[in-house]
């Protein structure tokens, strides 16, 4: 799955290069009020120059940015997102940026699943006194995004459905719960007073993300057209036995229905009024 994605990504990359020169990336910057936004202001006061591509949006804390916002923005065609927060330990709201870090981790996993280069999302800690750092970060990031080329999501139906699926997955209770609890489970301990091994929970979240993404993608792909397991497997580049296992669960949760097959290959269509999701 991952490898094939990389291939897909490289192709995109090569294709994007043709447009270099005439094209300028659109970059959204979410800056927290207390550190990064102040840092950006200081950068201005100090006249450190950086490329024009970034459009800053002020938020009170970097933690405000939920995964689905990021995916929505990529869906809308943005080429890069910069997320600026206070340094770890300095958060105005005590622990907000710890959560930001965990969520960005999830966002990057979902971006990777969907076929958007995770490098298009960058998290940086910029303090109120780091004006120069801010300009460096923006410059560097703009170059990174330029090198990646334009986000083709709007022109690529396949990519759009994958990003939409990632968006849907990011909203599932399961992923929100796991990512929301991760910090405490590792740091403070669970209900049995055991601190979880960070690698163990990381593994659980990675698997859950991949599963939830694939399930969402099945729903996304089967929304307008009933599809067979084999068809889904081919489009998704996921083994058909795994696709079938996802469908078992989706049917159980009344999210997808089997169309009555005429031959030997049943097809499935997404049920429009969703359940929990």
């Amino acid at each position, binding site marked *: 799955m991952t490898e094939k994605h990389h291939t897909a990504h490289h192709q995109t990359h090569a294709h994007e290069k043709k447009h270099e020169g005439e094209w300028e990336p659109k970059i959204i910057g979410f800056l927290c009020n207390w550190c990064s936004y102040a840092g950006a202001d200081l950068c201005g006061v100090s006249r450190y120059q950086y490329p024009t591509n970034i459009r800053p949006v002020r938020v009170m804390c970097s933690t405000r940015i939920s995964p689905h916002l990021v995916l929505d923005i990529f869906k809308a065609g943005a080429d890069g997102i910069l997320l600026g927060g206070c340094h770890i330990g300095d958060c105005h709201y005590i622990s907000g940026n710890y959560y930001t870090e965990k969520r960005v981790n999830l966002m990057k996993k979902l971006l990777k699943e969907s076929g958007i280069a995770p490098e298009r999302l960058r998290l940086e800690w910029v303090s109120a006194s780091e004006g120069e750092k801010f300009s460096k970060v923006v410059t560097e990031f703009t170059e990174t995004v330029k090198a990646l080329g334009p986000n083709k999501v709007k022109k690529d139906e396949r990519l759009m459905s994958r990003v939409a699926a990632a968006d849907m997955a990011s909203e599932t*209770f*399961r*992923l929100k*719960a*796991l990512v929301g*609890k991760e910090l405490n*489970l590792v740091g403070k301990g*669970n*209900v*049995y007073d*055991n601190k*979880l091994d960070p690698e163990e*929970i990381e593994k*659980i979240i990675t698997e*859950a993300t991949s*599963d939830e993404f694939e399930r969402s993608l099945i729903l996304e792909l089967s929304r307008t057209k009933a599809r*067979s*397991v*084999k068809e889904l*497997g081919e489009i998704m580049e996921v083994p*058909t*036995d795994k*696709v*079938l*296992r996802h*469908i*078992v*669960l989706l*049917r*159980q949760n*009344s999210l997808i229905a*089997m169309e009555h*097959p005429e031959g*030997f*290959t*049943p097809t499935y269509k997404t049920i429009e*009024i969703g*359940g*929990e999701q």
Partner: protein
Amino acid sequence: MATTDKVGAVMVVGGGISGLQSALDLADSGYKVYLVEKNASIGGTMAQLDKTFPTNDCAMCIMAPKLVAAGRHHNIQLITNADIAIVDGQAGNFTVTVRQRAFRVDPTKCTGCGSCAQKCPIEAVDEYNEGTKIRKAIYVAYPQAVPLIYSIDPEKCIGCGICAEECKAKAVDYDQKEKVLEIKVGSIIVSPGFDEFNARLKPEYGYGVYPNVVTSIEFERMLSATGPYFGTVLRPSDGDIPEKIAFIQCVGSRDEHCGNEYCSSVCCMYSIKEAIIAKEHGGNIKPSIFFMDMRAFGKEFDEYYNRAKNEHGIRFVRSRAAAVVENPKTKNMMIKYVENGEPKEEEFGLVVLAVGLTPPADAENLSRVMKFRLNDDGFCQTGAFSPVETSRPGIFVSGAFSSPKDIPMTVAEASGAAAKAGTEITTSRNTLVTKKVYPKEIDVAGKEPRVGVFICHCGINIGGVVNVPEVMEYAKTLPNVVYAEQNLYTCSADAQEKIKEKVKEHDLNRVVVASCTPRTHEPLFQNTIREAGLNAYLFEMANIRDQCSWIHMHEPKAATKKAKALVRMALAKSRLLEPLENLMIDVNQDALVIGGGVSGMVSALELAKQGIKVHLVEREKELGGNLRKLHYLPSGDDPDEYLKKVDQEIRANKNITLHLGTTVKTIDGYVGNFKTQLTDGSEMEHGVVVVAVGGREYKPEGEYLYGKNANVMTLLEFKGKMKKGEVKGDSYVFIQCVGSREDKFPNCSRVCCTGTMTAANKIKDKDPNAKVYVLYRDIRTYGFREKYYKEAAQKGVTFIRFDDEKKPVVEDKGGKIEVRLIDEDTGKEVVLRPDCLVLASGTRPEEGSEELAPMLKVPLTKEGFFLEAHMKLRPIDFATEGVYLAGIAHSPKFVDESIAQALGAVARAMTILSKTTLEAEGIVASVDEQYCDGCGICVPTCEYKALEIIDNKDIKDKKIVDVNVGLCKGCGACVGACPAGALTQKGFRDEQILAMIDAALEEPKKQEVKQ
């Protein structure tokens, strides 16, 4: 031993169908039962099955009532998630240490609503669905589980705390610790069931490597509507419906290479069943079954097999599949096999491995802890004449743990073990059971209905969809409602107190609960209102969860509207409810046992040991029946000696009155109150009847020179001669299936194959050079009997298979017998000239069965054997209560099986005889004498024979129907049949039903105006 020394309680270890039956029998006959189960819920393997053979009943539908009954029986304590640690003491007085693992959920608070599992973020493999589905780290095994209590899987839980946050009932308790219980019991029954053979040990079939090779139990889940594919058979590799499915038999059975030489007894039948169901689910599916011998040996199994072949078009291939290889491109499976000497290959979309039964994983541990012996195959050791006894006195066994067996035999044995366990402690019966005492009933006659309505949120299960406060406000506006409230969980313990309080406070005389299904919860609420002084039948329920909120999750407005309608309907009925009386019927505590063969003798003796006065009636002048003719058992045990011993015990037992050389002339009455007259003129009254009339060996009607040549004889005749040393000669031919599996008697007689092995081995023991040929169609030495087949083959007995349509031809050539047949395996003609021809003759019902059946109001099969109440789960009962069935009268069977069933009949009978009175149903049919003209149309509609046409006492020369409330089960069949409208069903009267209909239909107008 003094009464006080014996503990009036029994521990049943293993909560599958076997343990359930034992527990219910014992709890219904005056013993306290501790049902210990290693999993978190009871049900065992049967709960996983889709359908059951040979009736194709839905397994869960027939099992769920037993699960529920055990779950709420006041004499049964369920101890689930638990293991046996130590067993001290001796028969009559054991101390058992039980370790109960932590559920991490408080069972007294959990309502089983499932909100926790919905939100739990951790997924795990669902064992109940054999890994074909996913469950959560907090879970119940299956939706109908008993007890319906969620538990946390300690292996999987990451301790995130979400379930505790979700649980409105505050049931999650992460600090719950393992409990160690010390329990005193008088007897123990072990019924831990079996494990499936691990198909990975047969690598040539590719299980675990190829996705489209599945085990039979996985396939069972694939067929089930509650399984992963909602009942459509799909290939795990790609979700296609497989066009061709192959079943490979004997995977892990009859196979010395994997260490299991025994036959697993059930696989042939379950594969036929699975093939039929698969075909029913998808008309285009073509199943093939690869087998060695088709072992359809049980009651009416051969008919099922024949239907599979002839009606359903299932293909049967007589060959042991050698190997399975995947076509990596199509994921189809290539099966390599040899048929008629030729190697062949065939492609299939899906392969099902019919995995055998092995001892349960904890068998060795159980045997060590409980100190009983296992046999060479690792199953629990039992004896030929003690099929439900372990090697340790006071510890009994039932079900597949003692040998692989099907459900009916398991259920019969479970009752048998219950009888033995009860006999051990019979002096302490009724010492540990509790009887509920209710306050005096409030008289509601003539009072205006005052209804209290309690509406349940069920956490968010109802409240999340239906607007419960709105329904409650609406209920308040309905006539006769004097009180309405909403509860988070109406079934919780505190809510019961609240209901009782409100009944008093508002002088309520009817209670309506709007919550889940009455099938599980009505008895709980009925009990609550009885505690409040109301008659249990002044209760009505509206099912606004299972049949409203859960199925209209996305239409909250419409669901709320429907919930209001359901409440309005329940209210309409509640206004017309009346108190019903559960009539008490006196019980005569004596028993009548008909038939003095091994079954009748065992039943009579065991009943007598439990203090019951027994009349044992036998047609012959001596006891023993067929047991007198056996002389040899394959195990080497001596049936003659056993017969002598039991005969003596019976004659010495003062509780048994023998009636030899006589038969039953008439039987009248009903459960608890039978009156019987014998042909010798004696009369007796009794509370139950055990039918153990047996069967007899078929005497061939001229087939194979029988009766024409003195050297042609039946198997039993041959054994008789052998015993007397009258057998001469050095060559023998046995012909199987004489009078069995034929047009008139299509079914197998079960015992002849093994009986033939016994005789053949005996001949070979005496004269190793003797030539012995067995001519057969299928060898059906099921279970551990397989080893006698193998022994015969090793001793040089020659087995020649003939085709069903090409029977051997036997001719008399100048006094010498000549047998000609085509060997089906080689296609060549074989000519044999034996000194002696033995016909393995089938079993026929006993003479007189046809006269006896109508006297008892019980049915016969078309072959003339007695037909039990239900082929799967009630092998000993009849629909007519108080009449029980044992031995060959039910169907041909071995001595050990007859003994188990005969003991089972005792346990079933004791559920009646242990009481002085029986409580009849409240919901029964009643007759309006004014309208009944005695036409009798209703009589045949009653399965329970509760209706009888009698003379009308008031009007001369007129007839009238009489309802025996002791027998009436309250189904209402007669009410629907009555052309005069004279019959009504209490609790479901026409006006009650019509009031609900009116309430259902009145709604649209009013509601539309309002909105």
